[in-house]
Structure formats: structure tokens, C-alpha cells
């Protein structure tokens, strides 16, 4: 039996009755659509979070303050000097970082907006990957040493205070956290939809009035390429616990995390979570399959005489089975393809809507290829499983009685 001619015949009869075909496939379209939408949305979230974490570097260990019932001791240059004195092998350098939630005020109008100001050094500013629209995107060593009140602001702040003109903002003053900052650069906001206001200033500046940051929020222990993060973490942990007088990591006022491991844990969680939700959505595929079976049984009844004719022309039982299976599989695969399209569209719409709100980070859109491949395989299986009974029934029709049917 020739598959190609059978396939053409099936497609022709599907086209002859488009409405019925679409109604038959709707269960599959929605089921597959839901699975692909869920998996693609989850993939988008995973890809976005991964890239956020990767942007700050994965080859490091993060040392942070931990609020464990008491106010944790600060992490400052003395902490860094202490760690440096240990001379642990495999560590490249230490980078402290500060991020302060504060307010900006427009000198002309007095308007106030909530914002974040992040500290940077001449070395760490490169890690932020700022896209500069005007002025400069670096802070100098001198500015850090002098604790200069200079800031690189993002385009959202420019939109609020300077009518969206980046060039006009350069050299102007803005009040951040109650202190005057000179604007030396403007960088592009990451998301076109986000209203997030932020600025970058020399990290030393944030340790003075008005912020008075007592040390760093976090110290990144940057590792040499090829270093084993776990071994180094153990060494740092032991030294810190001893220095701060703790016996147990769980009681300490600091924490040490390995971003790469956290990222992997997160990815595993997302995969498991999306698989579970997709599986629940896949239940609707059973409903879709029953719809296919129903219409195939109708088709068999409608074509009883044809089946008798085919048998009289020499079709074996398995030829009849094949023909009806190809028909049901064609239906489910077409439904699956349409469902994949629908799912991608829904996921894209969902991500776009999320991005319209004031959210950071900006979500990237990613299509789940595993989701698509699994969906198409599942489509074939549904056609096979739910088409099997009607096809067998067709093949077992008595040729004489089938031919007599009108």
C-alpha cells in the first residue's frame, strides 16, 4: 500500500470538509497548544533568569550578609583584607557591591521617584553591560577615591526629569537620596516596557552621606578559571566561621552561595514544575483523542460501502487498518502542528504582557523545542491509539454486508 497517495487522498478529503476537520482537531489543538505554551513560557523564564545570573558571572562565590535574628556584621574592606590574607589558591580577586533603594528628586519640579542606585568600581562597571546613550559609561579610579557625587542614570530617569533627551541630561544635577549628583552618562533601560528607575555611582560614594552604607551588601569571590567552587567555598566558610566565632553555618550572620549551583537548582525546579503543569494540561489531549475516535467511527460508518468496495478490489484487512490510521494520524498531526503554533503565540503573548508591567528583568521569549518535539510525537501516538479501534472495526467489516450498505 502506497502511503503517499493515501496521504494525498486524506488531505483532499480533509480540505473538502474544512469545518468538520477543524472541529475534529480542536481538542488536540487546544491540548497541544496548552502544553507548548506552558513549556515555552517556562523556558522563557528560565532563559531570562539564567542570563541574568550569567551576566553577573558564574565563576564565583557570593558572600552576603544574613539577617539571622540579629543585625549581621558588615562586609567591608577589612573582610576582604582578611580573606586575602588567607591566600586561598584559585581565587582571582574580591569585588564588593552595593545596591541602595532610595529616591530621586527633580530640581526643577520637585517631583520624586523611587529608584535604585548601584555602586561600581572602574573594574566592576564593565560587568553591568551598560548600553550608553550619552556621556560616558565608566567611573574612574579617582572618582571612587574622591567619593565623587557623579551618576550614570538610566533612560527612565531621563524620561521623567529631562523630557527623554539623554544629551540634555549630561552635566545636569539630580538629587538622589537627598544629595546632589552630577549626571555623567545615560544608559538604556533594559526593557522598553519597564518603568524601572536606576543609576550607577562610584561604590565609595555610596559609603558616605547620605547613604552611609556600612560596607558592602555582597562580596563576590571571583575564581580563577578551572577552580573548584565547592573546595574554595569550604575553605572560606571555615575561616569566616572561625573569625566570627560560629560553630555552625546555619547560625552564622553571613552566607556563601555558588551562583552556578543555584542556577542549576533553579533550572531543575523549572523543568520539573513545567513538566508537571504540562502533564496536567496533557489530560485535555485524552479528550481530544476521544474526539478523534468519535469522528473516525462516524467516518467508518459513512464509508462502509467504500470499505466493502476496497475489500472487493483486493484490499487486505491491514490495508484498511492502514488507511484509517493514516487518516487519524494525519488529523492529530495537523492538529498538533496548529496547536504548536497556537502555543507559541500564547507564550509570546504572555511574555509580552509580563514585560508591559514594571518588572525587572525584561523577559526574553524562548520557544521550547523539547515541548514541540514531544507534542508532535504525542500527536502521532494519539492518532495511533485513538484511531486503532475505528480502524480495526473498519477492517473487520464483512465485505458482503459492507458492499450492500447504501
Amino acid at each position, binding site marked *: 500500500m502506497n502511503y503517499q497517495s493515501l496521504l494525498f487522498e486524506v488531505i483532499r478529503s480533509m480540505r473538502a470538509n474544512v469545518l468538520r476537520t477543524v472541529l475534529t482537531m480542536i481538542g488536540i489543538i487546544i491540548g497541544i497548544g496548552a502544553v507548548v505554551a506552558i513549556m515555552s513560557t517556562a523556558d522563557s523564564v528560565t532563559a531570562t533568569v539564567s542570563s541574568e545570573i550569567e551576566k553577573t558571572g558564574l565563576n564565583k562565590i557570593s558572600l552576603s550578609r544574613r539577617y539571622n535574628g540579629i543585625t549581621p556584621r558588615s562586609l567591608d574592606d577589612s573582610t576582604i583584607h582578611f580573606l586575602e590574607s588567607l591566600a586561598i589558591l584559585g581565587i582571582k580577586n574580591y569585588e564588593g557591591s552595593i545596591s541602595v533603594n532610595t529616591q530621586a528628586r527633580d530640581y526643577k519640579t520637585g517631583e520624586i521617584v523611587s529608584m535604585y542606585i548601584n555602586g561600581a568600581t572602574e573594574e566592576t562597571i564593565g560587568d553591568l553591560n551598560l548600553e550608553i546613550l550619552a556621556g560616558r559609561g565608566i567611573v574612574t579610579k579617582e572618582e571612587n577615591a574622591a567619593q565623587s557625587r557623579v551618576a550614570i542614570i538610566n533612560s527612565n530617569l531621563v524620561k521623567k526629569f529631562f523630557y527623554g533627551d539623554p544629551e540634555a541630561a549630561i552635566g545636569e544635577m539630580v538629587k538622589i537620596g537627598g544629595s546632589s549628583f552630577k549626571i555623567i552618562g545615560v544608559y538604556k533601560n533594559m526593557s522598553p516596557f519597564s518603568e524601572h528607575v536606576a543609576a550607577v555611582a562610584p561604590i565609595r560614594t555610596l559609603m558616605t552621606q547620605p547613604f552611609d552604607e556600612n560596607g558592602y551588601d555582597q562580596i563576590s569571590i571571583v575564581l580563577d578559571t578551572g577552580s573548584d567552587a565547592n573546595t574554595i567555598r569550604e575553605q572560606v566558610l571555615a575561616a569566616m566561621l572561625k573569625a566570627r566565632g560560629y560553630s555552625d553555618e546555619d547560625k552564622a550572620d553571613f552566607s556563601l552561595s555558588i551562583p552556578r549551583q543555584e542556577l542549576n537548582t533553579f533550572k531543575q525546579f523549572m523543568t520539573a514544575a513545567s513538566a508537571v503543569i504540562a502533564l496536567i494540561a496533557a489530560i485535555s489531549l485524552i479528550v481530544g483523542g476521544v474526539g478523534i475516535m468519535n469522528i473516525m467511527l462516524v467516518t467508518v460508518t459513512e464509508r462502509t460501502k467504500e470499505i466493502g468496495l476496497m475489500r*472487493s*478490489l483486493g484490499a*487486505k484487512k491491514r490495508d484498511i487498518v492502514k488507511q484509517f490510521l493514516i487518516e487519524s494520524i494525519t488529523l492529530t498531526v495537523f492538529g498538533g502542528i496548529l496547536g504548536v503554533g497556537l502555543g507559541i503565540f500564547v507564550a509570546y503573548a504572555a511574555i509580552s504582557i509580563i514585560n508591559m508591567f514594571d518588572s525587572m528583568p525584561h523577559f526574553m521569549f524562548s520557544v521550547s523545542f523539547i515541548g514541540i518535539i514531544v507534542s508532535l510525537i504525542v500527536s502521532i501516538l494519539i492518532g495511533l491509539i485513538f484511531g486503532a479501534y475505528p480502524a480495526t472495526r473498519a477492517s473487520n467489516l464483512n465485505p458482503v454486508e459492507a458492499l450492500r450498505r447504501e
Partner: protein
Amino acid sequence: MYRKQKSSNTSPMKKIICLTDVRKTYGINESAYEALKGINLRINAGEMVAVMGPSGSGKSTLMNILGLLDTPSSGKYQIDGRDTKSLDDDQMSELRNRTVGFIFQSFNLLPRITVLENIERPMVYAGITPRERHASALTNLEKVDLLNKASRFPPQLSGGQIQRVAIARALVMNPAIILADEPTGNLDSVTSTQVMELLCHINKQGNTVIIVTHSNEIASYAKRIIVIRDGLISEDKKT
């Protein structure tokens, strides 16, 4: 895969069909109904036979058994030298495919596929390659003089044309036996004559032709007339 069958219809005295005490019973016990009550029949290769009889006489049952669509309840049926009792469903299908060509009163073309694809269908089941199918279907369409309708769909043709397409389909596997069940039942007298002349012509090429009919006029085309009554052969005459 595909072998041209010449052997079966070259020697005229060879028995192509041989029924020995064939009975067919429908239902069981009290409701049992015996449609054929012991048919003995020999048909030689190359004969043109008409089977006549009133409704309910059992001639349809006989046709179904001859065409391998049904099996006898008892008795022996040999077709082209093979006993049908030993055949399974697949072998029956193969034999139908290669040895028997059906022509129906209601034509039975598939409406959704073209004339040419309809003629190709038996070859599809025989596993013949598309190229060979195509060529062979065209040759047979030419025999019934409808080459210009190859890519039409059956609903676009007249009744006579449809039946000629059906004849081309019956011929395409070059079967030893052509079984025509009331082939002119749905046709007017002019097209009936055309169809019968075509069947006579096919018979002259060597195919055994068996026609079931009510009409004496149609039966007169045959060289042998078999009359069935109450499940038995009541007459068997040469004309």
C-alpha cells in the same frame, strides 16, 4: 511483485471455476436459512456465462462466493485450481485482487479520487509501483475509450462513462474472471448495449466473464445461461 497472468486464460478447456455441492446457510437453528442448497458448477476459462434467477433465488449469494467475498458453509470451491477452503483472509484478498475483477450495478467508484486513481486502486493493493500503475491505468482507460477523462472525478461523468471506468478498473489486474453484477441495471438501453459489447470484446480477449442479470436481453449476449431457483441450479443451457 507483479506478474502478468497469462497462463489462466490461454487454454480454453481449463476449468477456472469448480463448485462441488456448495451450500450456504445463514443464521443458526430454527432461524437458519439455506440460500444455496448444493450447487455443482463448472465454468471453463474463456466462457461467457449469464446467471439468472428471481430475487431471493440465491444468485447473489452465489456471486459473492464466486467472487471470494463470502465462503461456502459446506462444499468445495476451486478457483483457478486452488481450493478456497485452505485460504486465510489475506490469501482471499490477494486472490480477489489478482484473479477476480468486479463490476457492480451501482458502479462503486470512489468519488473523492480521480478516474485514473480509481483504476489504479487494485494495483495499489497489489503493491505495484506508482509509475507502473500509472502506465497500466492509462492503457486500460484507453481500452474503454475514456483517455480524455483521466483526471476527472467520477461525479463529473455520465452513468455509461462511469461504468466503463469501472470496467477498466476490473481489467487493470488482468484477472482471469470478470464478475459483473447487474452491470447495466442503472443504465439506459443505448449505454447498456455499449457496456455489453465491451464485455463481449473483453471475453474475446480470453477473460472469463460471468454476468448476473434479470434481463433476457442482457443474458442473450452470453453463450451459456444458468438459472438459479431456490438455491439450486434449475437450468444450464448453451445458446
